[in-house]
């Protein structure tokens, strides 16, 4: 299977776009800081190189400037903190029961994902889901800690033994996406991979009935 990495990641859940916007905002902020500092370092290094004939007289006062260059960036970054924290609750608090269209049970074990649909249909390392529906996963592990990760949906959560974790997503694009185990879980951790298949709801209903 060949795919370029442009299309590798994909923006396939209702949350992916939010993620990318937030990421972009922070990326711009960080790039600004990087560019300014790098520019200043190079500029000073050239201008004040040893031997250059420049005025080096200076009165050094630092207190005021320390506060300025600390507090202004901090304020900007704090806005990112709030944005990211708000969005985190959206990722990690599943919608209320009445908003959930589909409940899937996920069991991780060394080294496979076992998934079960509401009508009892089971699959391994492959998860079929209907497009545009709110899907809630209730996950548990039979042995060590695993982590359920679908990059295209920007969603990840650890799957623990002896404790249920829930996450949710709403797929917005048909297609097949990678499912990874992201928490190191032993020998075949990197083979604990699978596919998420997003289908038209009618196809999904049909698929659900197949034996």
């Amino acid at each position, binding site marked *: *299977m*060949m*795919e370029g*990495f442009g299309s*590798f*990641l994909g923006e396939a859940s209702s949350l992916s776009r939010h*993620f990318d916007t*937030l*990421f972009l905002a*922070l990326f711009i902020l*960080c790039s600004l800081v*990087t560019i300014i500092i*790098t520019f*200043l*370092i190079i500029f*000073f*290094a050239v201008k*004040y*190189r*040893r*031997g250059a004939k420049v*005025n*080096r007289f200076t009165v050094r006062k*630092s207190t005021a400037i*320390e506060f300025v260059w600390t507090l202004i960036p*901090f304020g900007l*970054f*704090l806005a*990112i*903190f709030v*944005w*990211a*924290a708000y969005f*985190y609750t959206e*990722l*990690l*608090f599943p919608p209320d029961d009445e908003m959930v269209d589909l409940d899937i049970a996920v069991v991780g074990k060394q080294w496979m994902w076992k998934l079960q649909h509401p009508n009892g249909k089971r699959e391994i390392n492959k998860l079929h889901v209907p497009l545009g529906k709110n899907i809630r996963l209730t996950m548990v592990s039979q*042995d*060590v*800690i695993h982590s359920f*990760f679908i*990059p295209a949906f*920007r969603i*990840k*959560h*650890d799957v*623990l*033994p*002896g404790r249920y*974790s829930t996450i949710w997503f709403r797929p917005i694009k048909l297609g097949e996406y*990678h499912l*990874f*185990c992201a*928490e*190191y*879980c*032993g*020998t075949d*951790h*990197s083979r604990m991979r699978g596919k998420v298949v997003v289908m038209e709801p009618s196809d999904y209903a049909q698929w659900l009935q197949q034996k």
Partner: protein
Amino acid sequence: MSANAAAEYTSYLGGGDTLKSWLTTLDHKRIAVLYLISITLFFLIGGVAAAVIRLELVTYAGDFVTAETYNKTFSLHGIVMVWFFLIPSIPATLGNFLIPLMVGARDLAFPRLNLASWYLYTVGGIFTIGMVIAGGVDTGWTFYTPFSTMFSNTYVVAAVIGVFIVGFSTIFTGINFIVTIHKMRAPGLTWFRLPMFVWANYATSAIMVLATPVLAMTLTLVAVERIFQIGIFDPALGGDPLLFQHLFWFYSHPAVYIMVLPAMGVASELIACFSRNPIFGYRFMAYSVMAIAVLGFLVWGHHMFVSGQSVYAGMMFSLFSFVVAIPSAIKVFNWTATLYKGSISFEAPMLYALGFVFLFMIGGLTGIVVAALALDVHLTDTYFVIAHFHYIMVGGSVMAYLGGIHFWWPKMTGKMYSEMWGRVAAVLIFVGFNVTFFPQFLLGYLGMPRRYHEYPEALEVLNVISSGGAVILTLGYLLPLVYLLWSLRYGRIAGGNPWEAKGLEWQTSSPPAKHNFKETPVVTEEAYAYSPYKV
């Protein structure tokens, strides 16, 4: 008396060069050299493991080594690099050598404890090598439960004992530095006249002494559960698997500051010297290292945003992580401002120092990216995190460590290394580092999980670039090994103060006499009193 002493001057290297005299030495400078040799060996071991990892990842299929070997290799890499190289690196070599000199003392407060610390390091190291020969460990350096306690079939207990032992060598070093800095400063050397390197090691020592016991206790609990099947972490036995992560990161986040604070200290010394300027905002710089040491204890939960800890706890840890970024940012701004109106020259140590500032800045900014909750959900446990902490620890700390080694090499050995080769190596390392690790940010963003032996084919190109960069980086790291050793024999005689630097360590001969100073120096000026000498 003092004329007499001058007549009998012997360098700390001279006289008693039997193996026994080295292995029983109580001289902080000789112990520093012992450490230098041992951590270099471990750096090579960790480096070989890294090479195996990068070779395996050249192709997307797991075809170079088996999955089991791969897992043991990255575990070895992590354990060795963190506990046997980075944590001791700057404090135990440069710190050991320089702190008594910088405060104008004859030795550290407890010379025997200092030697004991090196022996503990060595015993822990031999234990770890033995563990690898016996078959290795496959838990990663993080030892997550219940995998490490109940499921792994490898030598977990031996690995844990090795780390446990080396932990005590860290604690001993920390105690020694704290007491020395408090009690043995030369007359006139007030707290706010101390070089930043001393401040940084002081802050580091505080973390070493406070955090390392928690690691010891946590690893003991891992061994207890594994050996006696007492339910501490494994829910099947009634334990709590997240408890381990809380305890582990309560040590390990502060520990990352053990790895980077001394590097900040080194960078400050180098930048001040080669720009002939006092460090800008000296007091802010001193407060910043102390603030980092304290705040560093409040952010451990940012390693656990998707672990199942409470969402609200996640918010607190995220907020504190943003706050701890403030003192780090202050450091970067002040280093930059130190260049302003300086008289800047670009000897190899300065190249390392400027490289450090740039790479540390990238590491710090991407730290903010992973500290932003919703972003971390996607990025955690991917190559993005690998890139982030390698920018800090390899780009930052190792770069500063090498800069420091070059800067103080003339002091330690009395010889100059080849300036041209020094610069070549610095540039190679900077380029190789970026080619190796920058693609990993992209890999992580695309979702490539860390600790993967095989991966989807589409990610191969970026991995090949990264492995290619590692070749350049390896060359860069091997070069200093060659020309520094070469300089021991053929290097120019350095003289007491080849850089015309400030600081008490430059007032004594190179290499320093056994007892450091002929007579106790008296300090009458602030640190970095460079300005009048500017050209």
